[in-house]
């Protein structure tokens, strides 16, 4: 089937197309230079055309989502919608059911989402959920930062073994890249403890976060994986965590980016996720303030770093992270129901309901810090739009965040008329920031940059040969002032005029008109077969003794990945 999107105003930052009126053609699911005269014409005259959105970090599928859904029926009730001829019944607000997740991303014009935390032991579960989410492709990142084998290799600085282990684990769990969460801290949580700072040791393992992160970064670059290490640093959410954050990012300065073709798309060697939660100064919440400028400054000076923000959106949401000790601390403050899930030899996760209210000082501080990061980081290719869904807010609020970024007036009015707590002006510099994003920058932080950071070579741009993943929004940028009409921005970005996924029209005028099976994107390392076999043989006695499943059952069989997009990496 051939199509031509006619007369749209195109924003395609990867190809440096900034608001040009042009046609986009696609055929059989791919973008093409030209189509024949028989092509179906989709008239999008004077509407915004962008590559479909790419979410670089969200939690949409897997065991902790299910724990959240199991124990928050009241959240599910908040998002109920009746089935239609095309869609199934919807449910859930901050932790929507899988079909709902797919529909809502689609309505916003998104095409790809990174599931940012997959425990390898329960990877089959994550994949079962991915298969249930329609319309968006998902690349899951397995967790490595508290894995017992990883900690051992890091302590002994066995980078070759670690590289082989990563290659094997990506294959075994059908994962995409290396995720690190609160390195050594989640292991300490096995004993109800945490690590503090970057140079603290995990109990019994005699290894520091610094050693683990550096080892993983080296192994990642040795393999030349498409994505860099993806880190959630230590001390999340603690006032005074800026030094830890900067120490973490600074510590891998000397590690050179891989020269392999597979790593050629990205510029960074470390991606710091939800930087907002890691940019607090002070000693306690009493004197906490924004450290956004310092963190942004560091990122501005160091192009090997990228980040996403984790913007707070003022909602009642659910926080869930592999940073389990932090969740327990939060539970102690809020007293709301606490869930936790420790996973043998690998990781832990904590979950609690969380209310971010504009009336409370801490939530407002976090909200302002997030916006400050967006506005202070100069190069939009180094910062991405996320809410760390559902941690700082549900992903359906992305359009609202876009409207805040595009309108200084809106931000100022929220501060001035007391819509938000006065800490926003007292403890952060948000009120002094006048920068406003334009559509080109929005397209960068919500699709082009995340795609480049994840090293995708088939999406995030409207390049011929790429997947025909396209979003059209009903705004005429030549005749619309986003600074003056934040509601208009929010509405348009919430309800895509078209969402096209692999050449199939899935959304028309904000409504789902068709659904399609999503792809699971995983990384296949080629050239380490021998080393992989050796490393698996070497861990087998340990595995058999200390895991509670058989190795045969640990692996994710092809049965669970019925629709894969395999990314081959020539690692040697």
């Amino acid at each position, binding site marked *: 089937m051939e199509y031509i999107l006619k007369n749209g105003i195109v924003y395609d930052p990867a190809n440096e197309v900034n608001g040009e009126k042009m046609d986009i053609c696609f055929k059989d699911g791919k973008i093409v230079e030209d189509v024949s005269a028989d092509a179906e014409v989709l008239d999008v005259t004077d509407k915004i055309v962008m590559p479909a959105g790419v979410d670089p970090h969200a939690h949409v599928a897997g065991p902790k989502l299910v724990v959240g859904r199991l124990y928050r029926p009241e959240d599910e009730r908040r998002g109920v919608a*009746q089935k239609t001829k095309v869609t199934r019944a919807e449910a859930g607000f901050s932790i929507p059911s899988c079909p709902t997740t797919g529909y809502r991303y689609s309505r916003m014009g998104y095409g790809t989402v990174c599931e940012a935390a997959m425990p390898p032991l329960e990877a089959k579960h994550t994949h079962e959920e991915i298969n249930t989410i329609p319309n968006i492709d998902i690349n899951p990142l397995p967790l490595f930062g508290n894995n017992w084998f990883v900690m051992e290799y890091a302590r002994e600085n066995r980078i070759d073994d670690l590289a082989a282990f990563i290659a094997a684990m990506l294959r075994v769990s059908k994962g995409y890249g290396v995720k690190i969460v609160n390195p050594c801290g989640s292991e300490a949580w096995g004993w109800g403890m945490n690590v503090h700072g970057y140079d603290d040791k995990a109990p019994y393992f005699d290894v520091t976060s610094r050693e683990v992160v550096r080892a993983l970064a080296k192994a990642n670059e040795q393999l030349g994986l498409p994505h860099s290490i993806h880190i959630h640093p230590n001390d999340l959410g603690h006032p005074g965590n800026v030094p830890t954050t900067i120490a973490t990012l600074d510590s891998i300065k000397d590690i050179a980016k891989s020269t392999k073709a597979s790593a050629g798309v990205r510029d960074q060697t470390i991606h710091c996720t939800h930087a907002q939660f890691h940019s607090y100064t002070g000693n306690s919440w009493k004197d906490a303030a924004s450290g956004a400028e310092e963190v942004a400054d560091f990122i501005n000076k160091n192009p090997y770093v990228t980040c996403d923000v984790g913007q707070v959106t003022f909602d009642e949401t659910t926080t869930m992270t592999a940073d389990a000790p932090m969740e327990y601390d939060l539970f102690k403050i809020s007293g709301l129901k606490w*869930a936790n899930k420790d996973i*043998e030899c690998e990781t832990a996760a904590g979950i609690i309901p969380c209310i*971010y209210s504009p009336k409370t000082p801490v939530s407002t501080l976090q909200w302002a810090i997030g916006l400050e990061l967006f506005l202070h980081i100069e190069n939009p290719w180094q910062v991405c739009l996320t809410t760390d869904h559902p941690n700082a807010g549900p992903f359906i609020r992305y359009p609202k965040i876009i409207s805040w970024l595009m309108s200084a007036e809106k931000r100022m009015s929220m501060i001035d008329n007391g819509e938000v707590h006065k800490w926003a002006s007292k403890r952060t510099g948000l009120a002094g920031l006048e920068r406003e994003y334009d559509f080109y920058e929005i397209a960068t932080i919500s699709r082009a940059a995340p795609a480049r950071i994840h090293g995708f070579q088939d999406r995030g741009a409207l390049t011929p040969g790429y997947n025909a993943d396209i979003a059209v929004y009903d705004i005429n940028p030549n005749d619309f002032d986003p600074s003056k009409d934040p509601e208009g921005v929010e509405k348009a970005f919430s309800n895509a005029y078209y969402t096209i996924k692999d050449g199939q029209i899935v959304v028309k005028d904000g409504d789902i008109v068709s659904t399609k099976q999503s792809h699971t994107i995983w990384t296949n390392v080629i050239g380490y077969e021998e080393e992989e076999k050796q490393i698996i043989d070497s861990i087998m006695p340990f595995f058999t003794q200390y895991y509670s*499943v058989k190795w045969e059952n640990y692996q994710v069989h092809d049965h669970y990945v019925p629709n894969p997009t395999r990314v081959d990496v020539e690692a040697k």
Partner: protein
Amino acid sequence: MTYEPPVTDYDHIVENCTCAFCGCNCDDLDFLVKDGHVVAVRHACRLGASKVMEDMDQRLLVPMVRNEEGVLEEVDWDTALDTAAKYIAESVRPVFYGWSETSTECMKEGVELGEYIGAVLDNQATICHGPSLQAMQNAGYPIQTLGEVKNRADVIAYSGSNAMNSHPRHLARYAAFPRGYFRQRGRFDRTVITMDPKFSDTAKMSDKWIGFEQNGDYGFYNALRAVLKGKKLQSESVSGIPAEDIYELAAEMEAAEFGVLFFGLGLTHTLGKQRNIDIAIKLVQDLNTNSKWGLTPMRGHFNVNGFNIFMAYETGWAFGVDFCRGYGRYMMGETNTIDLLVRKEPDCFMVIAADPGAHFPNGANQHLANIPVIQIDIHWGPSTELADVVLPGSFISVECGGTSYRMDGVPIWMKKAIDKPETCRDDEWIVRELKERVMKLREEPNVADEYVPNEGLACLLDK
């Protein structure tokens, strides 16, 4: 127990099979196969082994439909499926119950059929660990995988659960006995506490038995929590336990490096029901202030947790989900099988891999006798006596592969070891066939003309 000599007469061994019996989902079994039958099972406990080496006398082999005289009559597959599909298509309040002994792959077909026709989908949780789930929904859910227990736990408490009988390998494979990374001496490195009114077999294996009185659970846990908060008890004994024993127990629990509370139906089915679990969860949360504690419900069937997990990601709720209005609803006392049956609402009942005939209260079964019942199962059982259509399925983990979830949520691929009897079909196939036939018979009810987002989505707190 008499000594049984090991079986030596077999054709081949299939290794790493999974036991399809209790929530331990032991995945280290070896099936010894001869002439296409499993003749012996290595590593399994007696319960598991006898389940796997099925009794062919009891096996349902051919589809049957109850005829006008009220006798089950053998028919071909088409007739049986058409009859069943007709019952479902014509129903106003269908309930699809069971699912805990089949695979998530089969549930997938089931949820599609249920959403299409507007059925209630429910599983055995409704009669067993439903109160546990409701308590988690009220209080929280701090759990850990069984490997964590094996590697770290130094205090293990069983409350209202006689694991030795209901989950025979639980203590041996995961909890009390195995050598763990931080518990190299196995059982010697751990303290086992049993809290149960009965001096059960598990209590006999334990270092400590707290025999609080029947129905005294809530009061007992409340006292324990008060002690942990540093309060003095006012009575000399609570729920039949002397105050000093409670102080001692509290101190012991707090001193644990890593403690785990396993609870069973004893806790969920006494007075107070979900509130007993509720307060046990709160107790575990309190204990985490100075120690590390988790809990795990001792789920019965091998995939009862799987259905809850599956439903949660497919529909948003864990069990008892009602689709009659075209969207999901979950409400205690309204959308659960037992309540519906006692209220005499359902007019069609499909039971898949479960035995309500044996487990439901009498009032519920009485109603089942009056309405069409469709049974998908592998064995004869009391439910067969109630059934109007019988569709013989196949045995997951032996005759057919599928996914299940262990009591701690670890997914297990249960592989196929032998072929199924020729006349049987896979559960997944049967439900898919039913779905397709129902779709031909009745137009989808309760479909919205257009998508209407929930008002809850719009609400920002600042409004």
